[in-house]
């Protein structure tokens, strides 16, 4: 009997720890895993971007607009206080060290879409002192906005500048509030979450869906038949700062 009770207490204790460890968003994360295709098979979400397609429609910001809208991303006029989930960065800034004096003409100032790379070996997760940011089993680097203490260590650790901090209250700066998605408070870090809330419903990320040129392709790297895998097979792709060993999961077709 005692052993039974002990086992029970052990299981209960472990469950309590597990519950404490997983936040509200952690629960959502679980839902995302369940929604993954082919039950039982591993999932590793990734994105392949075709910058040439992206450049076809000049000045297009459809993906950025769609993302900002569904995630209640605040609009700060002051560049220093900007909150950005997905944005366009000039080639030489997105791919520092890749520029040379001759390709510069073709690529200089050409915008490249950048966002969180959902690294396989994320430095932001390594440094977070409260596990407010963590890597899910499907590779998504998630954020718990209720646990974040706002120390901004993750921002110092991210070599891609993909994280934003709410320097001021973001709520009055949301252009059109979407009640479906949580707003954030001042003093916490946020970033792209690969639309895990949409994945949980079996939908594609908002940016992918919004792109009129199909320049963004999202899928499961662990599925050899997926579109991302076939694109990676057929094209030469590069990643941002691969030499740092972060293993970014956003691939750019050259």
């Amino acid at each position, binding site marked *: 009997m005692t052993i039974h009770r002990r086992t029970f207490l052990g299981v209960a204790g472990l469950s309590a720890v597990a519950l404490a*460890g997983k936040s509200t968003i952690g629960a959502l994360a679980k839902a995302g895993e369940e929604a993954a295709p082919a039950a039982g098979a591993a999932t590793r979400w990734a994105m392949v971007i075709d910058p040439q397609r992206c450049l076809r429609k000049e000045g297009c910001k459809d993906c950025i607009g769609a993302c900002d809208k569904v995630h209640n991303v605040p609009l700060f006029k002051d*560049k*220093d*206080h*900007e909150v950005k989930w997905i944005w366009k*960065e000039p080639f*030489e*800034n*997105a791919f*520092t*060290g890749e520029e040379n004096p001759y390709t510069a003409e073709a690529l200089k100032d050409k915008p490249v879409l950048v966002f969180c790379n959902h690294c396989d070996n994320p*430095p932001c997760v*390594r*440094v*977070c*002192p*409260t*596990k*407010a940011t963590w890597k899910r089993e499907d590779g998504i680097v998630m954020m718990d906005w209720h*646990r*974040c*203490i*706002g*120390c*901004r*260590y993750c*921002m*110092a*650790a*991210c*070599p*891609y*500048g993909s994280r*934003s*901090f*709410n*320097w*001021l*209250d973001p709520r009055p700066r949301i252009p059109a509030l979407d009640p479906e998605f949580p707003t954030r*408070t*001042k*003093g*916490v*870090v946020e970033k792209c979450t690969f639309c895990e809330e949409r994945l949980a419903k079996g939908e594609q990320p908002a940016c992918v869906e919004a792109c009129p040129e199909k320049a963004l392709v999202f899928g499961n790297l662990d599925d050899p038949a997926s579109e991302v895998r076939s694109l990676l097979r057929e094209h030469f792709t590069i990643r941002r*700062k691969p030499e*740092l*060993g*972060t293993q970014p999961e956003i691939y750019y077709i050259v």
Partner: protein
Amino acid sequence: MFMFEKAVVGGKRYWAWIGALSAVILVGFLCYLLQLTEGLGITGLSRNVTWGMYIAQFTFFVGVAASAVMVVLPYYLHNYKAFGKLTILGEFLAISAVTMCMLFIFVDMGQPMRILNVMLHPTPGSMMFWDMISLSGYLVLNALIAYVTLSSERKEVPPPHWIKPIIILSIPWAVSIHTVTAFLYNGLPGRSFWLTAILAPRFLASAFAAGPALLILLCMIIRKLTKFDVGSEPIQKLAVIVTYAMIVNIFFVLMEIFTVFYSQIPEHMEHFKFLFVGLQGQAPLVPWMWTSMILAAASIFLLLVPRYRRNEKVLAVTCVMVFASLWIDKGLGLIIGGFTPSPLNVVTRYVPTAPELAIVVAIWAIGLLMITVFYKIALSVRERLAE
């Protein structure tokens, strides 16, 4: 309680000083309330320069705290008697500096009410977790040591034997606080300025110059204001420590500069260019960094020539120069230079705002207030014994 009764008796000058410090603290506190309601947006920090004055001051004062080991080690390990009168001053300096560090971290938090999450969700993989452990441990060690040794002194009995191993433990612990603080920065893949194994040794070298320099100045001030005189021997010995540490520190800086500029790797050079010549047309720190370098070179000269080092008037000026040089290097250049340019090669200007500076100055004032009160207690105990 902890002989605090000794801190509430004092002359007009004492109370005027306490009052002035309190006024500065009050202004800073009001500015902090503003930051608490508005957010960290009231500072000069930005997307690209996410840490600034607060974290830089934290880093600098961890060094000051660690430097107490430079009086504790010779006295307790080498039985260097001349430092006997100094150890308590070093320990109280450490307590005040660690408290300042904790406050600097606290005011930098975006969600300070959640700070206990660091303990609720301990994350040994994060260097910030270890920094919390090492800093709070160091505070407890020094508070205990200072209390026990001073109480024994007051009762005119030798300190209990059990405190000795704790004092010995505080020596490697002092090294650990600054090492872990360096680890906060030098394990980050995208920040080339900090990505160097010499960072922790450099931190320690500059700490062992800046801390003892400050201690020399404090001893001189105490001598002027009170009947208590540590004597010239310990001051001269501290000056020798400052000399060695300052030379080692500059040697480390030059090693870093050789590695960066001989290898010619742009990502590593750009931070130094930003600090010393300017980058992308922006050069806000250039005058500061050259001032720091000139002060360092001049102070090393004044420390090396025995005639100047032994002249206490010159030594006082030299100590101010050492402290100022290292404060600029660590309190400005290290953090801002590490964030500029950003990993996307963007130079963002960071200028601390008035409320931000008021908060910084208030924390300095808290440190000074603590030193004043602690030294007052220690010196009152000694004055009474001398009577």
